[in-house]
């Protein structure tokens, strides 16, 4: 039995429609969404309504939280002042555009969804704002999955799809400076765990222009990254017609989203 996991739709309706069609063509009916339905893109209400209409279970993303509660992200979640100013502009635009009903829908989304051994979150089990980048410290990555008591952690937020398997781990410890009877050494075996990042439907950041999502076979545990072409011109035109910064359209059209790299998870935000 296959399930599809989508994330980071960012109010890009043509991309979402293309991805849902691709999922349907494979006969998959079980879909989970990891949030960020809105932000940057021109069709926030349309995207929310399509997700609601299809009754797709969804976690709350950082954008979904912020357009409801006001900007909660600390400044360090933006890689530069320029990115922050553009983000704030898009935030204000989105807040003004969203209907009350859709805001309520976003406000009531759960922080995480658990299905058996799978945990679905937007950023990480710690925070909607934490980035689990593909090459982050392997032990820290394993800690995120293990402390969330999951076997597979599905996340988004980085906009870069990947599948990471962490296996054959162990840590040896030794108690120092103790009474002789308490001095001991032991080796702890770490469990095999996986992190699957679903990438982004509406704002890919993998260097190309295609929308991405993942398909997970719950029997074989196999995970596949899917790339889907969509009508990019339609979205770009809608961005400009909506009065959003034209740079958003330019980045989308050129697959230059990767230009804004995010902080690593080892960054400590003291807020």
């Amino acid at each position: 039995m296959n399930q599809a996991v989508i994330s980071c739709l960012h109010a890009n309706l043509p991309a979402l429609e293309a991805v849902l069609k691709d999922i349907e063509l494979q006969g998959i009916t079980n879909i989970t969404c990891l949030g960020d339905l809105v932000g940057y893109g021109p069709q926030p209400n349309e995207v929310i309504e399509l997700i609601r209409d299809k009754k797709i279970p969804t976690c709350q993303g950082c954008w979904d939280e912020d357009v409801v509660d006001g900007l909660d992200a600390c400044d360090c979640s933006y890689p530069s002042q320029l990115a922050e100013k553009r983000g704030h502009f898009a935030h204000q635009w989105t807040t003004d555009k969203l209907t009350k009903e859709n805001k309520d829908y976003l406000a009531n989304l759960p922080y995480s969804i658990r299905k058996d051994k799978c945990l679905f979150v937007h950023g990480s089990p710690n925070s909607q704002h934490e980035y689990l980048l593909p090459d982050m410290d392997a032990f820290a990555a394993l800690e995120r999955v293990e402390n969330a008591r999951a076997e597979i952690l599905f996340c988004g937020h980085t906009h870069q799809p990947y599948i990471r398997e962490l296996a054959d781990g162990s840590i040896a410890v030794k108690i120092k400076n103790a009474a002789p009877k308490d001095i001991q050494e032991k080796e702890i075996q770490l469990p095999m765990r996986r992190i699957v990042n679903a990438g982004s439907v509406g704002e890919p950041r993998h260097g190309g222009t295609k929308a991405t999502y993942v398909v997970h076979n719950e029997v074989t545990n196999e995970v596949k990254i899917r790339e889907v072409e969509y009508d990019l011109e339609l979205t770009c035109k809608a961005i400009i017609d909506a009065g959003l910064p034209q740079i958003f359209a330019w980045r989308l059209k050129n697959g230059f989203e990767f230009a804004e790299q995010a902080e690593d998870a080892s960054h400590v935000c003291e807020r």
Partner: protein
Amino acid sequence: MDPASLNTFWFELVNGAYGDVYRAKALMNLPDGRYILFNWIVSQQGSQYQTLNQVAPLNGRPERCSEIVIQGKNLNFESIKSTIHNCLLNDAVLDHHQTSLRNSQLQTARR
């Protein structure tokens, strides 16, 4: 200028976000007192960056100007202007930056 923002702006500029650029050259002041020369020519691979020798003191805005010259076609000057504007640090942020830089220099001295 916020260094990370400047980096993004320069990437966008030379990759055609604001029109077709053939040649771009800039001298930019950074909050840590550095003065950096940016150079880009369409026929050459990548940009050249050079830190000039003159370092400004860490006490507010430098006296020298940041400058930029762009040659190209269909340039969107309004958009360039507003993006540069979004890269500029205000007095409070600049002061915050420079205070922490001064403090880290002091800490090094304490050790």
